[in-house]
Every structure is written in C-alpha cells, then in structure tokens.
C-alpha cells in the first residue's frame, strides 16, 4: 500500500512520442481511473507503472522509491489484464497461488491466503477447474483473486471489464468497488468507458493524445469540465456543444436564438467573443418535465427531430442553429417528430468554452 507518483513521464516508440511528460500523484489507498479514447496513452502509462514498458523520460515512484529501472517483479504490484491472462495449464487454485509460490511463501501461508481470496471473490466452487472451463466473468474474478492474494502495494487494472457482456460488466464493476472497500489498496484503473470511470473512481484522470486533460473527482470532472473534450467525453448522452457569439451580455446563436449569459460567468466573457455553449441534456428539459433546481433559467422553443423513450425519461433530439442538441424529458409523454416544444434551460448548470481554445472560460 503506497502512493504512486509520476513526474514528467514520457514514452516514445522510436520517434513517435505517445505520452508527453505527464505528472500525476496518486495517494495512498486512492482509486484513480485513467480514462480516455483509444490511443490516448492511458494503457501505456499503466504499463509503465507496472514495468512492462520502459520509461523513456521522467520518473515513476511507488512508495518513496523510484522504480524506473526495477523489473516488474520487484515493484510489488498486481495487475489485472483485459484478456484475464490466466495461466491456462494451471487450476484456479494454482493460478491464485502462483505468485506466492514464486515468492517462496510457506505452503500453509499460500493455502490460507488463497482461501481468503477465494472467499472474498466467491471462487470456492471453482478451485480445481482450469481457466478453459470458466466463463468470462469467472475468469475475471480469478484474475482479480490472483492480484489480491499477493497483498501488493498497488493494483493495476487494464480495461478489465471490456471483454465482458454489458450485464456482467455492471455486476463486476460493483464487485471491483466492493473489493476496493474490502482490501483498501491503491488502485490505478484504465478504461475507455466513462461510466466505469464515474462509478469507480475517487479521482478521474481524463487523457487525450498522450496528455492529461483534467484530474478531479467524478463530480468535479462532470460539473466543471475544463474543456470541450472533457465535457463531451464524460457524461452520457454527451454534453451539447453549441457554437455562439457573446453580444450585449447574451449568448447569441446563428439562428437568432439568444440566451442570457449565466450570472456566474458574466465577468468571464467579453463582448464579441466566439464561444461554445455547453449544456447537458439533463439541463435542457421541456417545461413541466424537468428536475427543477430552482436556479437561474431561461426558455427556448425548439422543434423535435426525434425522440427516444427510455421509460423513466425520453431523450429528445432537436437542433439549435443547425447543431444537434439533446434534451431530456422526465415523466415523459408521447412526443411526435416535428412537434414544437418550449424548453427550460438551466443556466446555472450551463458551461461556456472559448471557441478558439476549447477551454472553459472559468479556467485561465
């Protein structure tokens, strides 16, 4: 159990630089999720922490020790892989105990720790099977068990749920969260799924193209995205991003629709500034079908293009100045395409980004 620290970590393959000097401090027992689209360098970063990739530049330390030149086996970390990576020729019991056997632990100690892990993960029935005889979910549990028996300084998860079907994924997600609460260890978890990131993380690290875009708690990242990338990546459906211009203290869209600049952002925008107005679907709701926060709001009348009923809510597709926007209707009724509806816009939840840089106007 230890903190992990990355200082200016760079990874280059030949001349291609894939991770551009990232800094990250992970606290003791913290659950940190690296999230981003494929190719953003999140897995590479994780593998550098594990020691499976060389660190081109900068330093990685686990505990207080710089581990750049230590092989994986000396870093005292456990890793759970996307493809489970179980040892096919060993039974579940042997898979679990393998690391301990290599570490020359006593037979009694191995048995005790393996049984303990099996208890936590509900593997007791499966101990004598081989990986080929297990389902995907069971294999993933064994992989996790193999990680916890070693009582490592930190757990590294590399997209552990992406090979599972949707239902199992949700179930295993809960199990991972429970596991972290039981065994209390530093966790670094890589995923491309923002829902996993939101639900599991103490802190989310959003990455793109080898850079860290934002670090924060799930709610910080959700409520205060620093730029349009984070805004569109975190949250489902993605945040509506609508180009507009600031004129006379109002956000003016190219179709003439206007919204007042939210009071808290008033001083941060300048007259004539080209901006991107960000609004989540939850904050664009037909009058009478929203979740009233009682905050600052405005109204827009929009034509419905399409509606997707989900039961408790309906996603409404509309357009603002030619850009697709999604709204949500809570307590839904039937909506016909082409219908014109008046929407409440929760201005206190809206975001404004600079159109040129994509950065939130709240960040300087």
């Amino acid at each position, binding site marked *: 159990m230890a903190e992990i620290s990355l200082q200016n970590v760079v990874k280059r393959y030949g001349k291609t630089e894939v991770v551009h000097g990232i800094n990250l401090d992970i606290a003791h027992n913290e659950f940190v999720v690296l999230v981003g689209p494929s190719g953003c360098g999140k897995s590479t970063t994780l593998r550098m922490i*594990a*020691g*499976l990739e060389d660190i081109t530049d900068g330093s990685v330390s686990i505990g207080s020790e710089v581990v750049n030149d230590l*092989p*994986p*086996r000396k*870093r005292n*970390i*456990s*890793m759970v*892989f*996307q*493809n*489970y*990576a*179980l*040892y*096919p*020729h*060993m039974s579940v019991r042997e898979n679990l105990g*393998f*690391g301990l056997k*290599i*570490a020359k632990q006593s037979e009694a100690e191995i048995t005790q720790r393996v049984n303990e892990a099996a208890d936590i993960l509900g593997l007791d029935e499966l101990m004598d099977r*081989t*990986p*080929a005889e297990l389902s995907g979910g069971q294999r993933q549990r064994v992989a996790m068990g*193999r990680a916890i028996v*070693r009582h490592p300084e930190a757990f*590294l998860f590399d997209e552990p749920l992406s090979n599972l079907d949707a239902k199992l994924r949700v179930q295993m997600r809960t199990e991972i969260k429970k596991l972290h609460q039981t065994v209390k260890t530093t966790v670094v978890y890589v995923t491309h799924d923002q829902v996993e990131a939101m639900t599991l993380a103490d802190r989310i690290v959003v990455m793109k193209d080898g850079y860290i875009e934002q670090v924060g708690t799930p709610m910080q990242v959700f409520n205060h995205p620093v730029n349009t990338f984070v805004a569109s990546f975190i949250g489902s459906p993605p945040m509506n991003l609508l180009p507009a211009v600031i004129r006379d203290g109002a956000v003016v869209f190219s179709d003439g629709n206007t919204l007042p600049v939210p009071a808290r952002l008033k001083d941060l925008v300048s007259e004539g500034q080209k901006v991107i107005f960000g609004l989540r679907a939850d904050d664009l709701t037909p009058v009478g079908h929203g979740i009233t926060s009682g905050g600052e709001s405005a109204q827009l009348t929009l034509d419905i293009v399409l509606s997707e009923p989900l039961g408790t809510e309906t996603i409404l597709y509309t357009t603002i100045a030619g850009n697709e926007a999604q709204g949500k209707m809570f307590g839904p009724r039937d909506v016909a395409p082409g219908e014109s509806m008046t929407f409440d816009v929760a201005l206190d939840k809206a975001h404004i980004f600079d159109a040129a840089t994509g950065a939130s106007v709240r960040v300087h």
Partner: protein
Amino acid sequence: MANKRPPFWQREKYTPYLLLLPAILTILFVVLLPLIFSLYTSFTGYRLIRPETLWQWVGLRNYQRIFNDGDFWVAFGRTILFLTIALNLEFLLGLGIALLINKITWGQRTLRTIMMFPMMFSPILVGYQFKFVFNDNIGILNNALQALGLSDGAIPWLVDEFLANFAIIFAEVWMSTSVFAILLLAGLFAMPRDPLEAAKVDGCNSWQVFRHITLPFLMPFVFIAMTIRSLDVARAYDIVDVMTGGGPAGRTELLWTLIARTGYDNARMGQANAMAYVSILLSIAFTYYFFTKLLAARKYMGGAE
C-alpha cells in the same frame, strides 16, 4: 408396370461404398495385402533366392530365433538409445534456436527459410556429406583438426564404436533439428503475450517465466514433434547405411539396417519380416506414449478431449 428394384449399384444404400470403392481397393492392394503377405511370410522360412520356400510353414520359429538372437536385441537397444539421444538433442537445440529466433525483430522469415535447408536434402545425400566430413583420411574434419594442430593422428570417426555412433547422431541431429525448431517457433508465435506479462508482474524472473509459463505452453508442440520424429528415427536406415552400413562389425547396427541386411543381403525374408513386426512394436509404443502425453498437455488448452 411393376416397380422393378434397380440393380444394387444404383440403390442409395450402396452409394457411399460405391464411391469409396477406389480408395478401398487402393488401400487393400497397396497396404493391406502386402501387410498380410509380410505377416504370413514371417511364419515361413521364405528366402528371396528360393521362391518355393514361400510355402514352407515354420510356425513361430522365426520369432523364437529373434528371442535368442543377441545381435537383434543389441540393435534394438541401440535404436532406443539412438532415438533417445537424437530426440533429446534435437529438442534442446531446436528449442534454443526457436527461442533465439523468436527474440529477433527482423530477418525472421529469412532465418526460418534457411533453417529448413537441411530438411530439403535427401537423407542419402546428408549421409554422403557426413561420410565425407568424418572420413578419417580425406575427411574435412580430420584435416581441419590437424591443420589447427588440435590432433596429430587420423581420428577414426566412422570406425571407433563410440565415435561412429556419435557421427551418425550428429548427422541425424544436423538434418532434423529444424523440425523441432520450426514447430516450436510456431508454438512461440501462437503464444499469448498476456500470461507472460502477468507472470512477470507476479514476481517471476526470466527463467521462471520460461519454466512455468512458456515451456508448459510449448509442450503440446514438443509432443507433436516428438511423435513425428520418433517414427522417423525408429525407422532410421538411409543415413546409417550410407555412413557406416551398420558396421564396422555391427557397431552401428540399428534395427532397420539389421532387418535390411537379413532380408536382402542374406535373403532371409521370412526372418526379416518377423524382425520387422517386433520392431514395429517399438514405434507403436513410442507413438502411443507421445500421443498420451500430447492429449494430456492439450487438455488445459481447451483443445482436444
């Protein structure tokens, strides 16, 4: 008109057999009949130069003779020894080569092709080549040793019992190591990378990763290679016959050189066939052994039952 039954070859029930007939006939004439014939002759005193002896039934006499024949059992033992040494050497060398080639990042294809060169030669030619290499007068090996001052006399490579057997095994290993190398390389290519990385994170050093993960994964490939090669080596004849002819004085006699000598040189075909049937047991035993191992090794791979 009464519904006349079609002739039997047009009835649906017989169609499969009719279609299989060419194959059945071929196997019958090419494999089964000779097999039965040779089995029959092993119970006769058949001599090639006296055809009438084909009808001379001697019962189990040929087999009884084998059991009292010291030369046969020496050849039998030597074949097993030869098989064991050659297979293990080929396995170890092949594994080494495969592991090395697996490591390099370019030129793999070229090396794989080069590696197959020895397999492209007829064993007879390999035999001649090594007969020349090991020849005590004009052989390149003795010449080289003398030129380098490592030896002053002519080493009798193909005459001394130990050296002659060594020379033959050397030729055999030279020719066939690549079978192991290629099969094991295929195994290494097919090997998933994740368990190797998992083992590294689990605390293994390189040797432990190899010992506990790579090697078990390769074992099915090893057993396939062993099965094929054990059949090959158990019937070894050509290299030996060319290099030493089983001599001198039977010092390099293997089962099949002995059987060929008995059958053709001495014309005692009945006796030779009896020996062949006993020898086949050896091949069957090895094949059975390696197949059992193979199935056991493949089970956990989720492959065969």
